[in-house]
């Protein structure tokens, strides 16, 4: 597990563990001027400014823009999607940028087709991503399950809006936390990342793409509507500092190739269509060659493999931020925009002498069980603010064995409004 500690004085803005190893595959010096004439210029888009400079400047950027640029910097060369508020900017930017780099953008007929198209493209060797919001995410669930059982790398960005159903398209909610874990039928692995800022949206998009390639699965990036639409001053890391992970290709001859070969970490090479491997991919329960099976041993092996690639790699997957926790006797557990409110509340509370800290998951699935257990041991009270009717708090309660339930305090709001720093400060004063 990677843990970063922040306090008011020592803030380490670099969240990713992937640092300064390799450069991206494309030239950052692409000239943008020529295409500006045919490109319906989006006045906010500062990509030219970004890409033209090896040294990147501080600019103002939207969360959804950061996702799109993160995808490009991670080497994503295939996007299929369907317009939906509040994620549409991701598609719009990639519609303008991908063709310029020879990548593929296609607007599909619906979200079901979108997840299917990126999965197909990934099997043909592409780095593929789609972006959507609640209603589209619901439609994609069957396809997400297919990507997981077939162990095909892809990334789904879900900019959460208020639900259920059409809900409030331009209002924030954190209601898809459980759906991102359990949305598809059957047991399946889940890697879900959750940024709190524009910069982190960029970083975690790259990380999502990297993890999808490394673990051969569908990785979900959950954004809050507010973060998707928020603009912040950011200085993105220079391209030389961006680490890109690519899938491992098989080196064996075709007749030795197993599409689901096991090694000790449950990560295995992945051939692409067209490489000459003539492999079969199916959503049916399959053996290690990829062919359908009804044998209990092979079915069990497949399910174990899907589970173990998460459980054996928890330390690589889980990222948390521990903020002002060293001396805290009250902890707040929150993700995304709600964690930002918590940080503001903590700063106000500490001015009044209350020892409050924050534990924030950057990886929300797999859940940071160990860090939460440690938090539960060290503090008297945990406050769990969230923009839903109690999804994170269920996980905290699951890990509460020796704690009285009354020490786990909720703040829940689903009305299109954010939980504010004052809401949290009030609760801190209540529980003291």
């Amino acid at each position, binding site marked *: 597990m990677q843990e970063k500690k922040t306090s008011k004085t020592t803030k380490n803005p670099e969240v990713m563990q992937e640092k300064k190893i390799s450069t991206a595959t494309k030239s950052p010096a692409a000239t943008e001027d020529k295409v500006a004439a045919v490109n319906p210029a989006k006045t906010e888009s500062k990509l030219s400014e970004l890409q033209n400079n090896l040294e990147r400047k501080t600019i103002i950027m939207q969360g959804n823009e950061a996702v799109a640029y993160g995808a490009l910097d991670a080497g994503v060369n295939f996007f299929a999607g369907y317009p939906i508020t509040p994620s549409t900017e991701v598609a719009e930017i990639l519609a303008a940028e991908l063709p310029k780099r020879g990548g593929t953008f296609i607007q599909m007929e619906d979200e079901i087709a979108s997840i299917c198209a990126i999965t197909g493209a990934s099997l*043909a060797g592409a780095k593929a991503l789609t972006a959507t919001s609640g209603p589209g995410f619901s439609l994609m669930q069957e396809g997400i399950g297919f990507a997981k059982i077939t162990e095909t790398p892809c990334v789904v960005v879900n900019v959460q809006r208020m639900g259920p159903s059409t809900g409030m398209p331009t209002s924030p909610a954190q209601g898809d936390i459980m759906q991102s874990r359990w949305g598809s039928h059957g047991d399946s692995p889940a890697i879900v990342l959750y940024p709190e800022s524009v910069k982190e949206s960029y970083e975690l998009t790259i990380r999502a793409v990297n993890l999808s390639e490394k673990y051969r699965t569908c990785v979900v990036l959950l954004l809050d509507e507010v973060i998707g639409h928020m603009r912040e001053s950011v200085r993105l890391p220079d391209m030389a500092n961006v680490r890109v992970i690519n899938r491992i290709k098989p080196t064996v001859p075709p007749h030795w190739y197993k599409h689901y070969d096991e090694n000790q970490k449950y990560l295995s090479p992945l051939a692409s269509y067209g490489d000459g491997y003539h492999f079969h991919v199916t959503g049916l329960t399959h053996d290690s060659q990829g062919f359908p099976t009804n044998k209990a041993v092979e079915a069990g092996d497949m399910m174990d493999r899907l589970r173990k690639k998460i459980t054996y790699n928890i330390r690589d997957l889980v990222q948390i931020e521990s903020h002002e926790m060293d001396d805290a006797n009250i902890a707040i557990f929150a993700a995304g925009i709600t964690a930002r409110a918590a940080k503001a509340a903590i700063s106000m509370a500490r001015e009044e002498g209350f020892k409050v800290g924050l534990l924030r998951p950057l990886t929300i699935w797999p859940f940071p069980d160990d860090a939460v257990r440690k938090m539960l041991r060290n503090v008297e009270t945990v406050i769990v603010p969230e923009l839903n009717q109690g999804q994170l708090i269920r996980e905290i309660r699951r890990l509460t064995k020796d704690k009285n339930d009354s020490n786990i305090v909720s703040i829940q709001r689903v009305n299109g409004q954010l939980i504010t720093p004052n809401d949290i400060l009030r609760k801190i004063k209540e529980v003291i």
Partner: protein
Amino acid sequence: MANIPQKVVHQYLRHDKKFPHVWCAGCSNGIILGAIIRAIASMNLDRDNIVMVSGIGCSSRMPVYIDLDTLHTLHGRSIAYATGIKMHKPNTKVIVVTGDGDCTAIGGNHLIHAARRNIDLSVILINNNIYGMTGGQCSPTTPHDAIATTAPYGNIEPNFNVCDLAMGAGASFVARTTAFHVTEMQNYIQASLEHPGFSLIEVIAACPVIYGRLNKKGGAPQMMKEFRDNSVPLAAVDKLPKEKVEGKIIRGILRKEIRQEYTAAYADLVRRVSDNNGGEKC
């Protein structure tokens, strides 16, 4: 071409895997698989450069048996997956094998939009008028008044004319044949693989065990005879009196036209907007 020895088929099967197949005795799917293989073999296509994609259903089990890159996807979604593959690797021949329920019910949306885009996929729609794998439920091509387990008193719905549907949506190559007309089928498959654009071949197929029994069609031989006797080549339609054509299966290439293919249009776009790589993939 029909007298190519059986050995050719064996060269393309995954002989060490997964036989016997799942299809019932008398099913047309094996005949169609044979025709696809003979088309590929006689065109001498690069086997590393063909992907066969299918959805869910009896026909969609076909990719398991053929030694190519194969993808067995979700119910109805084969064309969407195929679109992703084709867009990323435009030089790949992508064959979609699908059934009437898979392609025109749950997957109807993907069919019409792929046809509209005119993306170069060869869709082989095996129409047996029923959901066979789940035991005989009514599909969008089940004829009016026919019996299905979910239409036990006769189907009250009108059925799709699949070729008309594809043409209406913009498919640039559309053909219809039956499982009886094996050589014709092979020729159409070859033509569709050569055609630059979205192509759909409707193969009227026999499901003697389920559809045949429910509708008292006799066995597989009777159903094949019906295909022979009850179908008319497109070229003969104008020459025959109206009563000899009515209610018959019209076989032939119903449309073949050249209009801009989608991956080519996209490549043009890439050339237009990219400055240095001339459309090369990133």
